[in-house]
C-alpha cells in the first residue's frame, strides 16, 4: 500500500517537501532554541506575509522564487525592526517580537484583502500561505525549497564554529575578533530562509513548531551540538514525512497539523524518555536516591540499636524498626529487603533483622562520612 502511495505524484511532492522543510528548520532551529530565541521562527513566519503579498502585487506572478524573495525581504525588515527596538529602547526581545509579528501580519492581511478584490484571475492560492497547503506543492516549489534550504544548510556548515560560539558565548566571540552583530544577522536570516520554505507546507501559525520542537526534542538525547543539530534534522524529517503520509491516508486531516502533531509526539517522548535528563529518568533517579537514603538510615538505626546490646548481631523485630523511623512503613520494609539482599543485614527464622559484619562496617563508614 505504501508503495502505491509513493507512486502518487502529488504525494511524492508533499513528502519530499515536508522532509526538506523538516531537515532545514530542524537543524537551524537548534541555534534559535539554544540562543533562547525559540519564538523567532513564529515571528519571522508572520512577518513574511506582507512580503509575499507585495511581491505578488508588484509582479503579478506566483513563481516561488519571486514570492520567496518578497518573504525574505519582509523577514529581513522584521529582523531589522526587532534589532532597532531592542537596541534603542527599553522594550525587550519579547515585546519587539510581539509587535513585529502582529503588525507585519496585519499589514499582510490588508494586502491580501486588497488582492482578493483584484480582478486578476491569478489571485487565488495566496492564502495557502496562511495555513499551508502541502498538496499544492509543484516541482518548481520543491526546486525552490531545495535551493533555499540547501544554501542555508551550506552557510550553516561553513560558519559552524562561529555559530556555535555565537550561541554559547557571544561576548567571547567579539573578544576573539569576530563581528558578532553580523553573524547574528546572518543566523537570523538563515532562519528566515527556513521559515520561507515552510510557509507553503505548514503555514504561518504552525511554522513555529517546525523550528522549536525538533531541536527541543533532540536536546534531550544528546549532549553534543553536532548530535543535537543532526538529530534535530532527522526528527524534523520524520515528522514531515509521517505527517504527510498520515494526512494522505486519513481523510480530512490537513498536512500542517498532522506534521505538528507528529512533532508533538516526538517532543513528548523525548521529554519523557530522554536518557539522563528525561522526566522518567529524573523520577527514577529521585526514587533511587530516596531508597538509598532510607536504607542507609535503617542501617545506621540498627547499628545504634545494637549499641544497647552486648552483641552487635542482636536481632530486632520489624515492628520495632518500623516504629523507630520517621520514614514510611513501606520504605522501611523495602529498605530492609534491599539491605538484606546486599548482605548487610540478615533475617532470622522468625523474621527479625540483625547486622552482619559487613553491615556493621558500612554503618561505621556512613557515620564517618557524616561527621
Amino acid at each position: 500500500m505504501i508503495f502505491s502511495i509513493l507512486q502518487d505524484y502529488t504525494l511524492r511532492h508533499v513528502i519530499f517537501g515536508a522532509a526538506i522543510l523538516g531537515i532545514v528548520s530542524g537543524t537551524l532551529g537548534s541555534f534559535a532554541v539554544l540562543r533562547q530565541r525559540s519564538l523567532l521562527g513564529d515571528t519571522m513566519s508572520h512577518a513574511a506575509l506582507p512580503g509575499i503579498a507585495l511581491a505578488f502585487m508588484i509582479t503579478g506572478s506566483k513563481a516561488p522564487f519571486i514570492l520567496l524573495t518578497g518573504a525574505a525581504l519582509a523577514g529581513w525588515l522584521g529582523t531589522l525592526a526587532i534589532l532597532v527596538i531592542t537596541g534603542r529602547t527599553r522594550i525587550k526581545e519579547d515585546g519587539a517580537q510581539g509587535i513585529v509579528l502582529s503588525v507585519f501580519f496585519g499589514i499582510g492581511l490588508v494586502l491580501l484583502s486588497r488582492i482578493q478584490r483584484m480582478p486578476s484571475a491569478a489571485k487565488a492560492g495566496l492564502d495557502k500561505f496562511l495555513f499551508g497547503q502541502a498538496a499544492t506543492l509543484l516541482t518548481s516549489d520543491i526546486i525552490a525549497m531545495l535551493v533555499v534550504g540547501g544554501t542555508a544548510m551550506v552557510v550553516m556548515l561553513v560558519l559552524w564554529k562561529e555559530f556555535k560560539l555565537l550561541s554559547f558565548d557571544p561576548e567571547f566571540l567579539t573578544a576573539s575578533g569576530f563581528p558578532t552583530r553580523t553573524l547574528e544577522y546572518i543566523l537570523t536570516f538563515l532562519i528566515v530562509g527556513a521559515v520561507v520554505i515552510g510557509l507553503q507546507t505548514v503555514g504561518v501559525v504552525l511554522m513555529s513548531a517546525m523550528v522549536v520542537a525538533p531541536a527541543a526534542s533532540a536536546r534531550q538525547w544528546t549532549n553534543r551540538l553536532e548530535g543535537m543539530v543532526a538529530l534535530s534534522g532527522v526528527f524534523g524529517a520524520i515528522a514531515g514525512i509521517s505527517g504527510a503520509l498520515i494526512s494522505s491516508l486519513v481523510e480530512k486531516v490537513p498536512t500542517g497539523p498532522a506534521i505538528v502533531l507528529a512533532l508533538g509526539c516526538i517532543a513528548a517522548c523525548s521529554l519523557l524518555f530522554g536518557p539522563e535528563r528525561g522526566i522518567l529518568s529524573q523520577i527514577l533517579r529521585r526514587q533511587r536516591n530516596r531508597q538509598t537514603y532510607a536504607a542507609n538510615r535503617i542501617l545506621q538505626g540498627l547499628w545504634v540499636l545494637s549499641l544497647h546490646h552486648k552483641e552487635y548481631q542482636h536481632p530486632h523485630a520489624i515492628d520495632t524498626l518500623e516504629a523507630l523511623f520517621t520514614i514510611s512503613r513501606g520504605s522501611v520494609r523495602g529498605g530492609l529487603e534491599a539491605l538484606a539482599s546486599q548482605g548487610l543485614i540478615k533475617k532470622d527464622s522468625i523474621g527479625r533483622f540483625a547486622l552482619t559484619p559487613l553491615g556493621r562496617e558500612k554503618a561505621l563508614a556512613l557515620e564517618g562520612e557524616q561527621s
Partner: protein
Amino acid sequence: MNAHLEILSIAVVVAIACALPGTFLVLRKRALISDAISHAVLPGIVLGFFMTGNINSPLLMLGAVAAGLFTAWLTELLAKTRLVKEDAAIGLVFPVLFSIGVLLVSRHAGNIHLDTDAVLLGELAFAPFDRMMIQGTDLGPRSLWSMSAILLLNSVVILLLYKELKLSTFDSGLAQAQGFKPHRLHYALMTLVSLTVVGAFDSVGSILVVALMVAPPAAAFLLTKRLAPMIFIGALIGAISAIIGYGVAVLGDVSIAGSMAGACGFSFLVVLLFAPQRGLVAQQVMRRTQTLHLGVRMLVVHLSHHGSGTNQMDENECRKDHLTQHIAWTASFANKVAESAIKQGFIMPHHQVLKLTPKGILVAQEAMTQ
C-alpha cells in the same frame, strides 16, 4: 446606532480591554504569551462547541479560558523540568494545541459552523449582525456587550490587585517575601488574558488581539515610566489605533483587523520616532547636544585630573592638541568643546595650554561627585 458606529465602539472597547492586561505582559517580558494563548484557545472552543452544540453558549468561553490557562500551566511545567527554556516551552505548546483544534474542526467540518480563518483573522464587519435581543428588544451587537463585560472585569480585577500586580511585576522576590503569592497573581493575569483573547477574537481575530495587547502598551512604555499612566496611555493609543485602522479599512476596502493591527504598528512607529525623551529623534538630538555638554564636562574633569589651574599642572596633558591625541576627539569637536568651555568661563586659554578657572574646578568636582 449605525453599523459604523457599532463596529467602532466594539473596536475601541476591545482595544482598551486588551491594553489593561497587555501592559503587565509587556512589563513582565511575557508579551508573546498573548500570541500563544490566542492560538491555543481554539481546541477549548471546539470542545465547548461539541458539548453544547451552540456557538453562542457561555460554555465555549469557559472551555477557551480553560485551554488558555492550560497553555500557561503546561508552559510553566515544561520550563520547570529545566529540560527546555521558557521560550521553547511556549513554542512547543501552542502549535500543538492549535493543531488539535484545527484537526477537530476539519474532521467535523461538515456539521460545524466554525472557521479557522475566522478565528485567526476575525471579521469585525459581521459583528453588528449578531444582536443582543432580550424579549424582542434590540440592545445592540452581542460582542459589544460581551467585550464591555470583559473590559469591566479586567478593570475591576486590575484595580483590586493593582498594588500586588505592580509589586510582583517589578520585584517578584519582594512580593513573595511580603506574602503576595506572585504565582497566583500570574495565573490571575493569565485568566484575564485568556478571557480577553476569547472574547475579542470572535470579533477581531487573534492577530489583532496580539497587536492590541503588545504594541500600544509598548508605545506607552516609551512615553512614561509610571505604571498607572502607562495603562491609560496604552489604552488611549490602542483606541486611537483602532479608530484610525477602521477608517483606513473603510476607505481602502481592506481587512479591518489587518488594518487595525497595521495602525497599531503605525502608532508605535510614531511614538518610537517622536517620543519626547526616549524616541529615536529625541535620542539623536540629545546625543548631539549631550555630546557637547558631556564633552565640556569631560574636558574640565580631565584638566582637573592633571592639576590644571593649580601649581601642579601637568602641561603636557593640558595642551589643546592632547585632546585630539589621547581623548581621541576630532579636531573640530575638540575646538567646539574648548570654545564652549571658554564661553562658559570654565577654562582660560594660555598659549596652547588650557587652564581651569576656579569656576571650572568647581564644575569638575560637581561632575565627579554626581
